[in-house]
Structure formats: structure tokens, C-alpha cells
């Protein structure tokens, strides 16, 4: 993440960063334990928590030995405190996920309580609608949805990359290192703004992700990442995910 303005990094295979309670007093030590808190490994302190016991994702390990957080698609989610991107209008999101269902929109990560009405936001979804697709949204004052074709039927494991550039009018979704959707319509004006970041749901109350999350990196910056750095980040995330 060389050159990042600011970023957050969650690694659901790193037991040293996860706790069963939101206060961070009881570490996750074994599978089937709830994740009430995961610490941000970036050093920026944007830890994600869940105060409601039954709404915590569960730590599990897949058949290849990779640790992940299981979101039940019913009520599980995590949320950070207010993340402050700074005066920048570009964002990159990398997520290693396995979506288990295409029955309803699954919010992997969204800044603010809804991108529908809040400016300076993004989201990454799996699926994007109740269909076999994926999506990324970048928004200044006008939203730009990049929605894949319905060619990604659950269950499937992917490294998803979202590229948002408000001033450059880019909203791009990459799947396993390959561009899957792009929208170049006007995103209006402004920067990515300071909000809570919701992981696995919209605002902890709807659009819940039904699947596994291996890792998540969110970066806000003044400059776009070059292609090689994006590829390197995807390769790193794939090492955590085993998607391709």
C-alpha cells in the first residue's frame, strides 16, 4: 500500500487481531467463536466492532486452512467508528469473499449508512441485485454503479476490487484480477467523506452479506494506484482467499 493517503486493513485469518467481544478483552482463539471486534492492521485505529452478541460473524477455517469470518446473511455485521479519508477523491477496495447466495443484495462494505443519500461514499456488493452478479458503487454527489453481468453465480469465491475516482469519473469492478464492470458517468463533485464504515450490511440493519470474508483493505488517496500495485494487492488478497 505504498503511497497511501490513508487506509484500513482487516485480516480475518489473523487471530491476534480478533476478539469475541466488542471491547477487545476476550481473544478469538478457535473456530466457531464470534468476532465482536477486529483490529485495523493499518495502524490507523479503525477497528470494526459489533456490540450485539448474536449479530457477530463467526470465525471459521475453510478446507484449505484459510481463516475467514462467516456472515450469516441474517443479522451479522461489523462497523467502524468514523473514518476520515482526508481531502481526497479516490478510493480502492480489495476484498476476499465467498458469496453463498444470490437471493438478495449482499453488502460487503459500504461507507456511511447508505450511499443512496450520502455523498462522498462507495459500496462493494456480492451480489449486486438478487441475481448472479457483483457490484461496486462510487459516488461524489452523483452515484455511478458498476454492475457485472450475471455470470458470477453463488456459491463462488472471489477477490473483488473496487476502484472509485470521483473527479476522474471512474467506478470500476475487478474480479480475480480482471475487469468485470466499469461505469464512467459523471460522479459530480467532492471528496470521499468521513463516515462509519459498515462491513457485511447496510447500517447494521439491511442488505446483509451471506458469505465468507477472508480479508478487506480500503484505501483513500489523492492519486490512483498504478496497475502493478493493484495487481500486487489482488495477489496478496488471493493468498488469503484462494480464489484463483
Amino acid at each position: 500500500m505504498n503511497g497511501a493517503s490513508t487506509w484500513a486493513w482487516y485480516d480475518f485469518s489473523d487471530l491476534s487481531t480478533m476478539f469475541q467481544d466488542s471491547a477487545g478483552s476476550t481473544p478469538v482463539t478457535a473456530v466457531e467463536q464470534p468476532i465482536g471486534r477486529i483490529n485495523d492492521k493499518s495502524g490507523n485505529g479503525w477497528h470494526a466492532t459489533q456490540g450485539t452478541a448474536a449479530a457477530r460473524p463467526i470465525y471459521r477455517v475453510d478446507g484449505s486452512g484459510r481463516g475467514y469470518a462467516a456472515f450469516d446473511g441474517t443479522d451479522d455485521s461489523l462497523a467502524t467508528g468514523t473514518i476520515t479519508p482526508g481531502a481526497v477523491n479516490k478510493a480502492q477496495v480489495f476484498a476476499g469473499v465467498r458469496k453463498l447466495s444470490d437471493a438478495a443484495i449482499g453488502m460487503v462494505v459500504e461507507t456511511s449508512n447508505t450511499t443512496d443519500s450520502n455523498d462522498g461514499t462507495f459500496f462493494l456488493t456480492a451480489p449486486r441485485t438478487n441475481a448472479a452478479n457483483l457490484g461496486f458503487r462510487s459516488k461524489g454527489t452523483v452515484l455511478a454503479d458498476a454492475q457485472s453481468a450475471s455470470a458470477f453465480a453463488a456459491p463462488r469465491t472471489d477477490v473483488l476490487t473496487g476502484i472509485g475516482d470521483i473527479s476522474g469519473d471512474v467506478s470500476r469492478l475487478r474480479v480475480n484480477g480482471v475487469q468485470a464492470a466499469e461505469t464512467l458517468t459523471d460522479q459530480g463533485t467532492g471528496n470521499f467523506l468521513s463516515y462509519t464504515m459498515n462491513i457485511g450490511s447496510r447500517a447494521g440493519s439491511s442488505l446483509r452479506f451471506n458469505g465468507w470474508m477472508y480479508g478487506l483493505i480500503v484505501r483513500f488517496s489523492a492519486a490512483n494506484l498504478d496497475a502493478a500495485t493493484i495487481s500486487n494487492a489482488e495477489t496478496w488478497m488471493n493468498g488469503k482467499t484462494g480464489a484463483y
Partner: protein
Amino acid sequence: MDLFRTAIIPAANVVFARGLVAALSPGGAGMFTTPLSASGNTPATHFISSGMISAAIANLMPLQTWAFNGSWTLTGSTPGPAAVVHQAAVAAGFSCTLAEVQNLFTAADGTEQPPFDAMARLGLKIIDFQT
């Protein structure tokens, strides 16, 4: 120690249930926020909460077991200790009657089933929102 539970309650009981579980445990605040209905559209007829909860709280809830052999059959039912829960809630400052707790326990569907299995058994879907 935590135990896995799925609880589905009628919408008519949700305000009381939210207050009760929040009084019994700090980790209970925020439960029963996911709306359900038979069609997947509003209005909500039920609410669900599913996940790992402390054994101390799980053991205060009613628990049913079901078997599927072409159709669902109730194979076991442990009523929640309503009197104990009522006393604990009142001690925690939550104003309620024993009858209200008993009414909730009678109406609640509490199991160890995965949430989508429990919803399917009851013919319920999560209300589908769009964006």
C-alpha cells in the same frame, strides 16, 4: 462459553422482546432488527436474531428441536424459565409482568437451526430491500 441460537418472534412481540434481551445482557441490545414476512415484502410479521450468544442467556430461552422427514416434526421442546427471566428482568430495571414473559416465550420460535432453515420451516423470508 457461547451457544448458537436462532430466535424468531412475531412482530407483535418485538418491542417487548428487544427491551427484555437488552435488560438481561448488554450483548442483547440490538437483537431482533431483521424483519421477515411470508412474501419477503413489508409489512413485517416476524423478526429474527441468529448467532452465538452466551450460554447463560441461551439457557434462559425456550428451545425447540425439529426433524425433517418430508415435513417438519417437533421432536423436543424446553420451555424457557419464564419466572426466572421475569425476576432477572425486573432486577435489571426492566418493567414487565410474568404474563408478558410467558406470552413472549409461547410465541417465540427458538432453535439451534441455521437461520435460513428456521425461516424456511416457518415459511418466512427476509424482507428484501433494494439500492
